[in-house]
C-alpha cells in the first residue's frame, strides 16, 4: 500500500518563525503519497505550522513547499490545488458554524466547492450515514459532543473528495470510544478511496502506531522518519511512546522515567469532596443526574467519560461556578458557596478551554495569579520562577499565550492552577493536547502533590494511561456515573484485557441502551459514485454560486440569532422616534430673568414685550448683580436683562437710554438664537414706540424684508432632522453589523475555511455583505413609513429616487463595514472603530446637522470622504426639496464609487493565508 516512489508533498529548507520563536528550522522532507502519514512530537515543535504550510493556509516564509508537484508559494497553484486538499484545523469544531445544523454545515462546504444540489444531497447523505451522524442531521453543531464535532468536521473536509486530507490533532480532547470510531471511519474512507493521502498530527502515540509512515519532530526539526516498527527497531524500544522519547536529544530525555504511583497514605478527618445527589438541569435537559461521590484527602480521583456527558458541569458545580439544581456539594466539609473566598483559596481550578489572558505574557499571567491568590510579595517572584522552571516555560516566558501551541498553553494553565499551592486541584482535561513527556512530567508533579503534600486531585481525562495512575476512577455517561472503582477492579469487572477496552465496553453498553451513536457500517450503494462529478468552476475569479454559499450561511446564522435580528430592526425605529422628537432646534421658552433697576411703568411696559412672547420664559426677578452672575453661571438662565435706573424718565424725556443684555455664551448656538430674538423684540418695541410717539415709520419698515424658509415652511426641526436621522441610522447599523462579520470569524476561527476553500476574497466579502444589505433595506422601509405616517413628514420628491439611493447607500455602508472588519483583529476594535468612523464625520460633516456649504478645511474634506454626505443630499432632496433622479444623479455616482473603492480596500486588507 505504501507507495514510496511518489511523494504528495516535498518540503525543501522550510523555516518559519513567529516573532522570535522559531517554529520550523530548515526542514526538508518528502511526504509519501497514498498512505497514512503521522506527524508526532511534543507540542510547539512545529507540527501545526508544517501542516498549515502544506495545506496552503499559512503564508510561506522561507524555503519551498511542493504539493501535487506545484509550488505552494504561488497563488495560482494554491488556487488550483486547494480543491484537492482538505484541511481540518486543530481545536474541537473550530471550523464549524455553531448555530448551523449538522446538515447545513456540510451543505455549506459543498456549496463552497460549487457542487450542484443533487450532488450535495447524496454526498451529505453518504457522509452522514457513514459517520453515524445521520440521526443528528438537524442538531446545531454547538450542541454536539466533542467526538461528534470532529466527525462533522471530517464530513465537511471530505465533501469534495480530496486527494490529500490534512488532519491537525483530530482526536485531541475526544473520548476513547469516539476516538476509536473516528479512526475506523478514516480507515473505511481510505478503503473506498485508496488514492487518498492522509497527513495527521497527533499527540496519541497508540494511534500513531497504526499509521503507515511516521515523521517524528522536535524543536522545529525532523528527528526521524519511517514506520512505527522501524522507529522501534531503530531505538530498540517496545512501544512507540518509549521509542519517541529515546529519539529525543539527550538533554530533553534526561530525567524521564516511567511514572509510578506510590501507595497512598490515609488521611483522616473530613472528606475533601462530598457530592450528594448533585443534579444540574438546563431547561428540560439534565446535564448532571444525581451524582454522588466521596473523595478523601490526598486521593487522585479520575473522571472519565465522553464529551458532553456532564463532567465539566459537575466540576463547575464543585467550584461554585454553577449552582446545582438539586443535591449538595461539599468541599472540606463546607457546602460550596460562590461567595466563600476562603474555600476558593484552597482550590486550584483549570478549565477545559484555555482561559487565561491571551493579551498578557506568560509571566504576566503568572504574576497576576500569584497576586490574586495573595502570595506574599516577597515570595511571589520566586514562586513564579519556580513555576516557569517546573513547567518548562522559560523560553516562552515573555511571549503571548495566543501565539503558543495548545500544549504549551495547557502547561501554563497548570502552572497557574497550582501557583498558590492549593489543597485541592480540580482539573478539567488538563492534559488534552499535551505531549507524552510533558504529560509524564505533569503527572509526576500531581503524584508528588498528592502523596507528599496530601493534595486532593479531581481530574478528568481522556487518556487511559492517565486513568490507570488514579487511585480511583469513575466513568460518566449522559450525566450519570456508570461505574466507579479502583482502575484494576473496573478492568476485572468487565473481564477486559486493558482498561481502555473496559471503558469502551461500558460506553457501548450505555450507548446502545439509549441507541445514540451507531455508525452505519454498511457500505453505501452510492459510494461508488464518489469522484464522478468533477469539481467545477474552481478557477473562476468570481463565482456567484460560491458567493451565494457565503450569503446563505451568513443569513442563516443571522436568522438563528433572534436577539440580533430584533435589535437590528427595532433599534433604528426606537432611535428614530427618540431623535425625531428629541433633536429640536425650534427655540421656544428661552429662560430669562430681569434685573429691573427702574421699576417704573415704562420699564414694565418695555419688559412686557418679552414676557408676552412665546419664545421667552420669565424666571424670578434678579435683585443684585451678584445674583445675576450666579444664575447665569449655574445655567438657569439663557440671558438676563438689566434695565437701568431712570429708564422711564429718560425715555419720556427723549434721552437715549441703554438696556443691558447678558447672554450665556456657554452654549454658543443658543446664545446666537437668544441674541437674534432679543434684537427682534427690541426692534418691534422701537417700531411700536416710534409710531406711538412720533408717528414715523422706523427704518426697518422702509422695506419689507420677506424671509422665505424654503423646503420647510413651518421651520420645524422634525422636517429637517428626519431625513438625516434616516441616513444616520441606516448607516450606523449597517456598518457596525457588517464590521463584526469578518472579524468575528477571525476571532472564533472559522475564517480558516476561507483560507482552505477555493473561494476568492471578493466572493467571501460580497457574500457576507448581502444579508446585511437586506436588513438595511427592511430597516429603511420601516423607517420611511415611520417618518411619513407617524412624524407626518411628506415625501415631496421621487420615492423611486430615494429607494435607489438607499440601495446604493446600504451597499456602501456595509462595504465600509467590511473594510473595518478586514483591517482590525478584534471585535472590540471593530465596534469601536466603526462607531467612531460612522458617528464623528456623520454628525458633524455630513450636512445632517450643520450645512455642508459652511464647512471649511479638514471638516469639508472628511465630510466628502464618506458616503453619508451624498445620501444625506438624497434624503433631504427627496423629503424636503421635491427632487428626483435628474437633480440627484451625481450622488448616485459617488455612492457607487464608494462601493467599488471600499470593496477594493477590503479585498486588499483581507488576508487569504495565516501568517
Amino acid at each position, binding site marked *: 500500500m505504501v507507495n514510496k516512489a511518489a511523494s504528495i508533498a516535498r518540503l525543501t529548507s522550510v523555516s518559519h518563525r513567529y516573532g522570535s520563536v522559531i517554529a520550523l528550522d530548515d526542514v526538508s522532507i518528502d511526504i509519501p503519497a497514498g498512505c497514512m502519514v503521522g506527524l508526532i512530537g511534543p507540542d510547539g515543535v512545529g507540527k501545526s505550522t508544517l501542516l498549515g504550510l502544506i495545506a496552503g493556509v499559512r503564508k510561506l516564509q522561507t524555503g519551498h513547499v511542493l504539493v501535487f508537484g506545484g509550488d505552494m508559494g504561488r497563488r495560482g497553484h494554491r488556487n488550483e490545488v486547494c480543491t484537492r486538499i482538505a484541511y481540518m484545523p486543530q481545536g474541537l469544531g473550530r471550523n464549524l458554524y455553531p448555530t448551523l445544523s449538522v446538515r447545513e454545515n456540510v451543505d455549506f462546504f459543498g456549496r463552497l466547492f460549487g457542487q450542484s444540489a443533487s450532488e450535495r444531497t447524496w454526498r451529505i447523505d453518504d457522509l452522514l450515514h457513514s459517520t453515524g451522524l445521520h440521526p443528528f442531521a438537524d442538531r446545531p453543531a454547538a450542541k454536539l459532543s466533542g467526538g461528534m464535532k470532529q466527525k462533522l468536521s471530517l464530513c465537511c473536509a471530505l465533501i469534495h473528495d480530496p486527494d490529500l486530507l490534512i488532519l491537525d490533532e483530530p482526536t485531541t480532547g475526544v473520548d476513547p470510544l469516539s476516538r476509536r470510531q473516528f479512526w475506523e471511519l478514516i480507515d473505511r474512507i481510505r478503503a473506498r478511496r485508496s488514492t487518498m493521502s492522509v497527513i495527521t498530527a497527533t499527540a496519541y502515540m497508540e494511534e500513531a502506531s497504526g499509521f503507515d509512515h511516521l515523521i517524528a519532530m522536535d524543536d522545529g526539526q525532523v528527528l526521524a522518519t519511517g514506520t512505527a516498527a522501524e522507529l522501534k527497531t531503530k531505538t530498540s524500544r517496545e512501544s512507540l511512546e518509549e521509542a519517541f522519547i529515546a529519539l529525543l536529544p539527550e538533554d530533553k530525555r534526561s530525567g524521564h522515567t516511567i511514572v509510578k504511583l506510590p501507595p497512598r497514605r490515609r488521611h483522616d478527618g473530613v472528606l475533601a469532596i462530598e457530592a450528594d445527589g448533585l443534579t444540574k438541569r438546563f431547561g428540560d435537559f439534565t446535564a448532571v443526574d444525581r451524582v454522588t461521590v466521596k473523595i478523601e484527602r490526598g486521593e487522585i480521583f479520575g473522571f472519565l467519560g465522553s464529551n458532553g456527558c456532564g463532567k465539566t458541569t459537575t466540576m*463547575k458545580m464543585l467550584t461554585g461556578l454553577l449552582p446545582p439544581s438539586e443535591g449538595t456539594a461539599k468541599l472540606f466539609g463546607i457546602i460550596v458557596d460562590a461567595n466563600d473566598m476562603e474555600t476558593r483559596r484552597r482550590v486550584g481550578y483549570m*478549565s477545559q478551554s484555555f*482561559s487565561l*489572558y*491571551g*493579551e498578557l505574557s506568560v509571566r504576566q499571567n503568572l504574576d497576576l495569579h500569584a497576586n490574586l491568590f*495573595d502570595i506574599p510579595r516577597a515570595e511571589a517572584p520566586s514562586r513564579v520562577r519556580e513555576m516557569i522552571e517546573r513547567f518548562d516555560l522559560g523560553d516562552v516566558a515573555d511571549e503571548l499565550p495566543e501565539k503558543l501551541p495548545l500544549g504549551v498553553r495547557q502547561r501554563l494553565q497548570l502552572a497557574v492552577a497550582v501557583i498558590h499551592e492549593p489543597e485541592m486541584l480540580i482539573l478539567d482535561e488538563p492534559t488534552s493536547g499535551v505531549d507524552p513527556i510533558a504529560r509524564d512530567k505533569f503527572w509526576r508533579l500531581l503524584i508528588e502533590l498528592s502523596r507528599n503534600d496530601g493534595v486532593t486531585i479531581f481530574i478528568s481525562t481522556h487518556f487511559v494511561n492517565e486513568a490507570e495512575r488514579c487511585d480511583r476512577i469513575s466513568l460518566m455517561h449522559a450525566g450519570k456515573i456508570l461505574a466507579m472503582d479502583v482502575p484494576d477492579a473496573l478492568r476485572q469487572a468487565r473481564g477486559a484485557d486493558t482498561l481502555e477496552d473496559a471503558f469502551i465496553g461500558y460506553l457501548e453498553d450505555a450507548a446502545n441502551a439509549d441507541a445514540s451513536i451507531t455508525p452505519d457500517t454498511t457500505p453505501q450503494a452510492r459510494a461508488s459514485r464518489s469522484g464522478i462529478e468533477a469539481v467545477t468552476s474552481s478557477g473562476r475569479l468570481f463565482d456567484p454560486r460560491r458567493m451565494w454559499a457565503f450569503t446563505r450561511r451568513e443569513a442563516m446564522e443571522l436568522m438563528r440569532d433572534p*436577539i440580533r435580528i430584533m435589535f437590528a430592526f427595532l*433599534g433604528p425605529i426606537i*432611535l428614530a422616534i*427618540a*431623535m425625531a422628537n*428629541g433633536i*429640536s432646534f425650534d427655540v421656544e421658552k428661552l429662560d430669562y430673568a430681569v434685573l429691573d433697576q427702574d421699576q417704573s411703568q415704562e420699564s414694565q411696559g418695555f419688559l412686557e414685550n418679552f414676557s408676552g412672547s412665546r419664545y421667552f420664559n420669565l424666571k424670578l426677578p434678579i435683585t443684585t448683580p451678584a445674583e445675576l452672575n450666579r444664575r447665569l*453661571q449655574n*445655567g438657569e438662565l439663557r440671558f438676563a436683562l438689566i434695565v437701568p435706573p431712570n429708564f422711564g424718565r429718560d425715555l419720556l424725556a*427723549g434721552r*437715549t437710554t*441703554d*438696556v*443691558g*443684555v447678558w447672554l*450665556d*455664551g*456657554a452654549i454658543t*448656538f443658543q446664545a*446666537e*438664537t437668544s*441674541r437674534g*430674538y*432679543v434684537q427682534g423684540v427690541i426692534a418691534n*418695541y422701537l417700531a411700536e414706540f416710534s409710531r406711538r410717539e412720533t408717528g414715523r415709520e422706523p427704518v*426697518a419698515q422702509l*422695506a*419689507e424684508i420677506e*424671509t422665505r424658509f*424654503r423646503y420647510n415652511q413651518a*421651520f420645524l426641526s422634525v*422636517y*429637517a432632522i428626519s431625513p438625516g436621522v434616516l441616513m444616520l441610522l441606516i448607516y450606523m*447599523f449597517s456598518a457596525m*453589523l457588517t464590521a*463584526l462579520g469578518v472579524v468575528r470569524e477571525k476571532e472564533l476561527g472559522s475564517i480558516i475555511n476561507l483560507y482552505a476553500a477555493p473561494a476568492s476574497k471578493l466572493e467571501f466579502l460580497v457574500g457576507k455583505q448581502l444579508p446585511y444589505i437586506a436588513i438595511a433595506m427592511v430597516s429603511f422601509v420601516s423607517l420611511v413609513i415611520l417618518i411619513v405616517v407617524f412624524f407626518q413628514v411628506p415625501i415631496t420628491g421621487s420615492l423611486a429616487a430615494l429607494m435607489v439611493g438607499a440601495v446604493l447607500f446600504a451597499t456602501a455602508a456595509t462595504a465600509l463595514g467590511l473594510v473595518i472588519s478586514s483591517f482590525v483583529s*478584534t471585535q*472590540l*476594535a471593530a465596534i*469601536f*472603530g466603526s*462607531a*467612531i468612523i460612522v458617528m*464623528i464625520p456623520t454628525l458633524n*460633516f455630513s450636512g445632517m*446637522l450643520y*450645512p455642508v456649504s*459652511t464647512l*471649511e478645511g479638514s471638516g469639508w474634506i*472628511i465630510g466628502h470622504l464618506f458616503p453619508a454626505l451624498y445620501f444625506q443630499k438624497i434624503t*433631504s*432632496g427627496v423629503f424636503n426639496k421635491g427632487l428626483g433622479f435628474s*437633480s440627484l444623479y451625481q450622488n448616485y455616482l459617488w455612492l457607487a464609487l464608494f462601493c467599488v473603492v471600499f470593496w477594493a480596500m477590503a479585498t486588499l486588507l483581507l488576508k487569504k493565508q495565516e501568517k
Partner: protein
Amino acid sequence: MRRRLKNVFRLGVKELNSLRRDPVLVFLIAFTFTFAVYTVATGVQTELRNASIAVVDEDRSELSRQIRAAFLQPYFQTPVLLDLDEIDAAMDASRYAFVIDIPPGFQADILGARQPRLQVNVDATAMTLAGNGAAYIQTIISGQLTEFLNRSDLQYIQPVTVTMRTMFNPNLDSSWFMSVMQIVSNITMLSLILSGAAVIRERERGTIEHLLVMPVTPGEIMLAKIWANGLAILLAVIVSLYVVVQGILAVRISGSIALFVFGAALFLYAMTALGIVLSTFAKSMPQFALLAIPFFVVMNMLSGGTSPLGGMPKSLQIIMQAAPSTHFTSFAQAVLFRGAGIEIVWPQMVAMVAIGTLLFLLAMMRFRATMSSAH
C-alpha cells in the same frame, strides 16, 4: 478590605495591560481625543460663520451693491451673484444656505418710501444655521438701509439702545463649545463600549469563569474594569483638554480643570457601570454592539450637547434625567465655560454618583446570574 482593594488594583493593572496590547484600540482612543476633537471644533460652526450666500441683484444700484458688500467674512462667504432663474437649482443642490433677491428698482422705491419687498430665501433644512442666519441678514440689511438713508439726510433717533454682552465666551466662538462637547461625547461612547466589550471578551474567551473560581468577587472584577478603563479614558481627556483644547484651539477655559476631571471620573464610573450592565444582557459581541448603539447615540444626541435640552418634549427631558450624560453635559458646560465651582455643580455630581451606584448594583446582581446561565 485591604485585600479587596489590592485585588481590584491588580485586576485593573491587568486590564490596562490588555488595553496596551491592542494597538488599534489605543490608536482609536488617541485619535478620537486629539484629531477628532480638533476637526470637529474647527470644522463645525454653530454660530454664523462662513455661511454660503448668493445674491440675485436685479436692481444693480448703489444701494444693492452696498448691501452685497455688507456680507463680510468671517460671518459670510463672499456673496456670489446669481441670475434669477438659477435660484432653484442652486438651492436644490444645497450650494447656498441663503439667497437674497433684490428686486428691480429697489433703491428708487426706498427713496420714494414705497416700501419695496426684498426676498431672503433660506434653506430651512439647515436648522442650525437658518434661523440665526436669517435674523442676521435682516439686521445687516436694515443697517445698510439706515446708513443709506442717513446719507440721504433722513434723521432718526433711537430712544432705547441695547448693549449686548456675552458672558463666558465673548465672541461666541463655537469651537469652544464643540471641542468640549466632542470630548463629552467621546467619553460617553468610549466608556460604554470599552467596559462592556471587556466583559463580553472575557466571557467569550472563558477567562471570566477562571476569575470567578479565584478568591475574587464579581464586585472586585467590575470595580477593576471601571477604574482601569476609566483611568485610560481620563488620561486621554486630560491630554485632550490641555493639548488640543487649550493648546491648539486656544479655548479659554474659565473653570477648574481639576474639578472637571473629578466630575469626569464620576461620569466614567456611571458609564462603565452601564456598559457592564448592558454586557450582562448580551450573549455575544454583535449583540452587545446592537444593544450599545441606541444607548450611546441617544446619549450623544439628547443630552444637551448636540441640541438644547430645553427644546425637547417635557417627557423626554424627564427620561433623559436618568442618563448620566445629561448631568455630565450640564456639569461640563458649567465648570469649563461658566467657571462654576463645586457649590454650583454639586447637584449634577450627586446625580451622577447616584445613577452610577444604582447601575453598579444592578450590574452586580446580573453578573453572577449570567455566569450561571452560561452553559
